[in-house]
């Protein structure tokens, strides 16, 4: 499977309810690049921008208006460690836990 197929794929909980979309993958540094988990966001262009522009990751905090604009999306971002992922697939990714039990992205690094 290619990473591009996984990005933007819907994420569902065990009850098949959609809890978000895949925005990013985290991997261990080289040489093995083992996947440690998925970054989960919500559908929508603003949410997409929050992840692409580095605000959700906490890499950037400015300019202020852009941070404000993406703040909600950044707060909603979650990290699902690889142990919680039941099945991978371009159609959907199953997470074996509810949305509320996932940790916020900014606390995961």
């Amino acid at each position, binding site marked *: 499977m290619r990473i591009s197929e996984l990005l933007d794929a819907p994420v569902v909980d065990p009850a098949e309810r959609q809890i978000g979309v895949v925005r990013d993958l985290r991997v261990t540094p080289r040489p093995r690049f083992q996947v440690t988990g998925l970054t989960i966001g919500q559908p929508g262009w603003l949410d997409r921008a929050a992840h*692409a522009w*580095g605000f959700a990751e906490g890499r*950037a*905090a*400015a*300019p*202020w*208006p*852009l941070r404000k604009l993406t703040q909600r999306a950044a707060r909603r971002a979650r990290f699902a460690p690889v142990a919680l992922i039941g099945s991978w697939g371009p159609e959907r990714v199953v997470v074996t836990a509810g949305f509320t039990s996932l940790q916020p992205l900014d606390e995961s690094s």
Partner: protein
Amino acid sequence: MNRAFAFTLGTLSAIGGFIDIGDLVADAQVGARFGLRLAWVSLFTVAGIMCFSEMAGRVALKTQRPALALARSRLGPRFGLFGLIGSLLVTALLVMAELAGVALAFQLATSVHYLLWVPVALALVLLVVWKLPFEVMERVYGLLGLAMLVFVVAVWQLDPDWSQLWSSATTPAPTGRETWATYLFFLVALVGAQMTPYEMFFFSSGAVDHRWRPKDIKVMRANVIVGFPLGGILAVAIQAVAFLVFFEAGVRVEHLSQTALPVAVALGKIGLVVAIVGIFAATFGATLETLFASSYDTAQYFGWSYGKVQPPARAARFTTVMLALLFAAAALALTTLDPITVTIVAVVCSASLLPFLFLPVLLVANDRELMGELANGRLSNAVGFATVTVSVIVAALAFPLLILTKGGTV
């Protein structure tokens, strides 16, 4: 390289980069039709391009890569490609206009029609691209471009009524015989002509080529602070002389050769000769710079190796893109399309692409993991964000105004 020398060079390329065929045409047209009523736009464009050149320079110092190389990861490949295709199309138009500008300089010198000079200009560009190291090119045309300062001298020689110039400059509204639509249209054109993306691009890749490091940040900033405002003053001077010579008579700038006429009126033959040298250097330098900038953009988007540091055969795709653009532009110039119209359309299209170039640089410069202590401060972010916001508005207005005013001809 000696620091003082490096400083002079950077300043020269900033001035040289600021003025090209777009400014010659747009500023002259604006001066003839609106006087100095759009001169305030230069305050904004100079501040904006200074801010983004400094930002791009900083990214280059820290990452050893031109700022736009990182754009694709921020905008995604789709928007990145959109921006790339757009800028290639604009470049083809711009290079066509620049070639016409080079040919014009020959026409002014020889009285032979400029179309006959286009192939000569093309041959010269090819020769220089193939044979001259990049740094030499940059210096020679930066230095010769200083001849454009003759436009500033011409303002004094025309002995203007300074209070009239001042009152025109402080009236941000169209004159009685113009509409708000054309006023706004030329505002967009001025933004496109003065904030050319390749200035920012050149500034940052110049920093990479000269192997500047974070400790060179002062030299880099000094260049920005001196170079770009001088370019802005030149742009306003072109507007002022066109105002003084054409406005009262109601003459519209419809031929390239008219852009140099005010200098001839003010300073006679010697002035004209200097102006010809300046126009030649500015347009020839800009031809090379726009060509290189868009070939670099293409190469960087796809990750290809790119030219001038590698011999052409090592950077075959880069070289091919550049040659294709150059020949397309030359062919376009020979179709007898009016260079004035093409220039205005090109600078307006170029203005509409600015958000795609500014936004990623602003985002990258704020990435603290990448930039560390060189990440943006408050001033850069305030000016940068304001510039991006204005560029989005300008981009949104560009095409409606282009159609509404039929390219400013109404």
